[in-house]
């Protein structure tokens, strides 16, 4: 069923953004347009440039879409409030990054759940070591791996279970996936090491 963007309630909009909805893309665009006035407001309030708040706003909408897709958005919060608060946090993050110029390890996506498996007394050391890697370069090198390794790392980073990865990529079992992943990471490490030496 087609819908008119201006007539959508929060509930309808959220439903239309959930995975599998035929109107997903259109609903996402409606969501973007609905609160786009925040771009100007944010620039004024946080003393950021319109370009900066514009990207922070796109980032916000993407985060809201991801939250809806993962079932993290609770209907009890008005969508406007939810968008506003995430946008505010993104602007504050931007100010912090501008003022410290520090590449913190939890830049981009939030800290991986794996990181806090590590005990508190060791996590700091591991995070420091993680920060020593160039994430942009690492991502370029991942793209240079073979199709299977690249796909395996992509699915793994999205939180897909090893059982599903095995099914999708034609491995015999989840155990084979684990062993193969370590080999892929070894290969990536060699590739990354070569580029750092040059």
């Amino acid at each position, binding site marked *: 069923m087609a819908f008119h963007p201006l007539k959508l309630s929060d509930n309808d909009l959220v439903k239309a953004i959930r995975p599998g909805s035929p109107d997903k893309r259109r609903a996402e665009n409606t969501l973007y347009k609905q609160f786009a006035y925040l771009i100007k407001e944010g620039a004024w309030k946080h003393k950021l440039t319109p370009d900066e708040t514009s990207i922070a706003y796109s980032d916000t909408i*993407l985060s809201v879409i991801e939250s809806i897709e993962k079932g993290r958005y609770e209907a009890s919060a008005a969508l406007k409030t939810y968008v506003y608060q995430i946008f505010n946090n993104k602007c504050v993050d931007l100010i912090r990054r501008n003022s410290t110029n520090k590449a913190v390890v939890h830049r981009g996506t939030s800290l991986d759940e794996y990181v806090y498996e590590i005990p508190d007394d*060791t996590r700091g050391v591991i995070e420091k070591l993680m920060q020593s890697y160039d994430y942009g370069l690492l991502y370029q090198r991942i793209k240079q791996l073979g199709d299977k390794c690249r796909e395996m790392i992509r699915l793994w980073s999205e939180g897909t279970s090893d059982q599903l990865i095995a099914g999708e990529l034609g491995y015999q079992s989840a155990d084979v996936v684990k062993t193969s992943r370590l080999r892929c990471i070894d290969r990536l490490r060699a590739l990354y090491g070569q580029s750092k030496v040059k």
Partner: protein
Amino acid sequence: MDNRIEAYFGKTLTGEERAQFEKEMRKNPVLADEVAFYLATRKAQADGARQETLEARHAEWQQLLEEEAPRTRSLWWAAAAAVAALAVGLAWYLNSSGPSYERLAHAYVSTELQTVGVRMDGTADSLQLAARLFNDGSLEEARRVTDGLLANDPDNAETKKLAGIVSLRLKDYDKAIEHFQQLGIREDLFSNPGKFYEALARLERKVPGDKEKAEELLKEVVEKGLEGKEVVEKWDVK
């Protein structure tokens, strides 16, 4: 790369093996670096893929705004009329039903307790991590971190407060009330929202007796000038 890394993060090591692995991770820089590279790979992929998606969507949305600009002006008057109609509707709704503590508490939890403050210095201790997870909507993960912190330091008021808020948002009202009660009885804190938050949790839980107890707590908050007083005074419930 050490095969145990997969087993460690896949949680398939025995307790003893896990402890041994963590001990080695502390002492062996080679193993620590392998773990760091393993995690950096996962994060680089997640960040890189998201950045690409963001750039593509940002470009698409910018285009959308440019196309919409001329239409927006002609829609202004229609929008103004819609806003006026909404205002009339809202006024009617508030007049006909009147504010109640339950509705106001629900609105407060839905709007004011969606995010919590994080420090601006980029530190990554566990409490900050829990706060960031909470703000990202990863409530179960935030709960795991606060539970872990409270196991080691059960008297930490900041952790207790966040643990209560996380439970409240997860609709685990019994647990939220337990945290807030423990916080509320503390007399050594400069600012203590325990009783106010306990009242909110009770108004959300709605079991018999909760409303009365919540009203008592809110009265106490106002009389003793506790945190939340200004909010309760603005509610103006007769």
